[in-house]
């Protein structure tokens, strides 16, 4: 399937949070390296899946992409235009094009507003519709996401979790965006309702020609919806590949471990697969390990891993991976070919 032109180009994006202390004057005593040099590209009509454990920087990355938090350094280009450093006013036209769907449908809808207002406010604020036209647009959106136009005057508490997530999707679609960040859109929902929302997201993607950044921890869901998948660990992307390739031949040991940690809802396949159970917990992003950040938990680590930070490089299989001891790499391709193909250098940063 051929995808369109680059829509979102992220280069070397960094977001550090200062940790301050001091009796009279606060001084910076440390930095939380939440996002620490991330590069990737999303093309028109494409879905990039983003997976990683809590604290790996997924949510900070999403917020930094939308400029909801100012990145420390790096570049975010949307349709070729730089977003980093723009003022709120300058960002406004771009914000129409980039929307977000949140994880918790109970916290992301204002309980004191009616559904019509929740979905209609973006249209009104951007001066796209008002009055009867606004009402018609909102009711069309409600129908599109599988709700009834009569729901216009209801409050969020009158809806179930799945229906609320539909309202959140209608709100995100209201401005006809090109790009939607979906941050764990189904993980708060009941299992029997998840499939409905996943199918709905696919349908609207096709209909509206949307690109998605789909953040989730459920690898089955991510594989199902994503064309490509990026795996994050402690503020970095450690592997990125086509969805099928990533799941069939994971290169990075962390990807291998994640895949083998997730229980498969099929007893025989679950028992038959290879296991790589990691010891310990994710280290603190305040003082990440030297060299490869994963070496403290990696079963394949050698002394080079503690010393040198492996760059994200392209392997012949089409994977990008940051590892000194990659797996599932054809023997002839054991020597990494080029530095991080298209997305520019993601080489180790010093400081």
């Amino acid at each position, binding site marked *: 399937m051929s995808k369109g032109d680059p829509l979102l180009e992220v280069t070397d994006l960094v977001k550090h949070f200062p940790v301050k202390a001091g009796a009279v004057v606060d001084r910076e005593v440390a930095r939380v390296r939440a996002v620490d040099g991330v590069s990737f590209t999303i093309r028109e009509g494409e879905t990039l899946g983003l997976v990683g454990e*809590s604290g790996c920087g997924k949510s900070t990355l999403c917020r930094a992409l939308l400029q909801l938090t100012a990145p420390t350094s790096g570049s975010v280009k949307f349709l070729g235009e730089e977003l980093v450093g723009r003022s709120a006013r300058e960002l406004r036209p771009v914000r129409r094009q980039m929307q977000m769907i949140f994880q918790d449908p109970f916290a992301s809808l204002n309980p004191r507003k009616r559904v019509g207002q929740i979905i209609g406010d973006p249209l009104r604020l951007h001066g796209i519709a008002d009055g009867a036209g606004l009402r018609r647009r909102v009711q069309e959106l409600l129908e599109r996401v599988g709700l009834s136009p009569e729901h216009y005057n209801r409050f969020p508490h009158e809806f179930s979790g799945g229906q609320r997530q539909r309202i959140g999707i209608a709100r995100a679609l209201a401005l006809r965006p090109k790009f939607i960040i979906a941050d764990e859109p189904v993980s708060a929902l009941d299992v029997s309702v998840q499939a409905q929302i996943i199918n709905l997201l696919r349908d609207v993607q096709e209909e509206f020609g949307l690109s998605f950044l789909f953040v989730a921890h459920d690898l089955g869901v991510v594989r199902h919806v994503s064309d490509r998948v990026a795996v994050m660990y402690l503020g970095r992307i450690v592997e990125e590949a086509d969805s099928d390739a990533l799941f069939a031949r994971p290169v990075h040991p962390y990807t291998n471990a994640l895949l083998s940690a997730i229980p498969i809802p099929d007893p025989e396949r679950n028992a038959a697969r290879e296991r790589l159970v990691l010891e310990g*917990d994710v280290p603190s992003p305040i003082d990440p390990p030297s060299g490869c950040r994963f070496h403290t938990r990696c079963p394949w680590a050698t002394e080079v891993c503690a010393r040198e930070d492996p760059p994200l490089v392209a392997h012949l299989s089409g994977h990008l991976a940051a590892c000194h001891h990659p797996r599932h790499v054809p023997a002839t391709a054991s020597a990494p070919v080029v530095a991080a193909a298209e997305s520019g250098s993601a080489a180790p940063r010093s400081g």
Partner: protein
Amino acid sequence: MSALLTVRDLRVGFRTDDGLVRAVDGVSFDVRAGEVLAIVGESGSGKSVTAQTITGLTRAPNATITGSVRYRGQELVDLDDAGLRAVRGEQIAMVFQDPMSSLNPVYRVGDQIVEMIRAHRDVSRAEARERAVELLRSVGIAQPESRIRDYPHQFSGGMRQRVMIAMALALEPAVLIADEPTTALDVTVQAQILRLLARLNRERDLAVIMITHDLGVVAELADRVLVMYAGQVVENGTLDDIFYRPQHPYTAGLLGSLTRLDEPRGRRLPQIPGQPPSLLTPPQGCRFAPRCAHRFDRCAELPELDDRGGTGHLDRCWLDSEHRQRLREPVVVS
């Protein structure tokens, strides 16, 4: 093998301003020694209320509890508080979802375990402390001698859950009820905790009741599976029965709607329409009928949980065996 724990026609209702919520509505099952029983269901299916009622945790002024819960023949439902204390922890212990709110943040972890042991056993502080160290070691906590002096916030989520499991095992119970013990944890840590539970089950012959919504966790750990829907058990079978020969349309629908790593990407997922019913006004007849693609006239009457095939695989569905075969065929969705 005779059952360690028998639950018969358990009903738990809560009076609320909106009316009576029938959270658990006629639940029956057995737990045998050394077996892992998974109770799987969505939020509001009654799985947690069932588990909490076993240890008397749902007793409240607005709750009505009827039916029977017997542990080694002893009735627990109408047992007084002192009697219940002798069962709780000693015979049946419980681990909850959120390990942060289950530990007291202002007491050292070791002191909490010591206090718990000394409340039940006539041992000295030093002996209890020794036992605490040994327990922490047995659940995989490194340097337990120094870690017992730490406070809960100094432990990570996975480590706190290990502490909770250690505490639950302190009095050597025969049954451990684990209510979504890994839901709050990351997947790599979840894998560690599931492995620990499997080891304890094997080494100590500990019966485990695992409450979860995650069919992956079920596949990983369970011997038998109860599927709950709207306060009732809709299916009860062995692990393979449930995953490879589901007999209830809800179970089959849940399994079919999962994204699977062995299916081609991009297909439309078979989905169950609608959402679970309100427990204030559950549907007449079969609770799942309004969402069921296979419903027919008879579903207006509530089916009993029954062993219709004579194989020990129980379900609450009127479909005949021919229709049941069809439940397992791939679903075509428009």
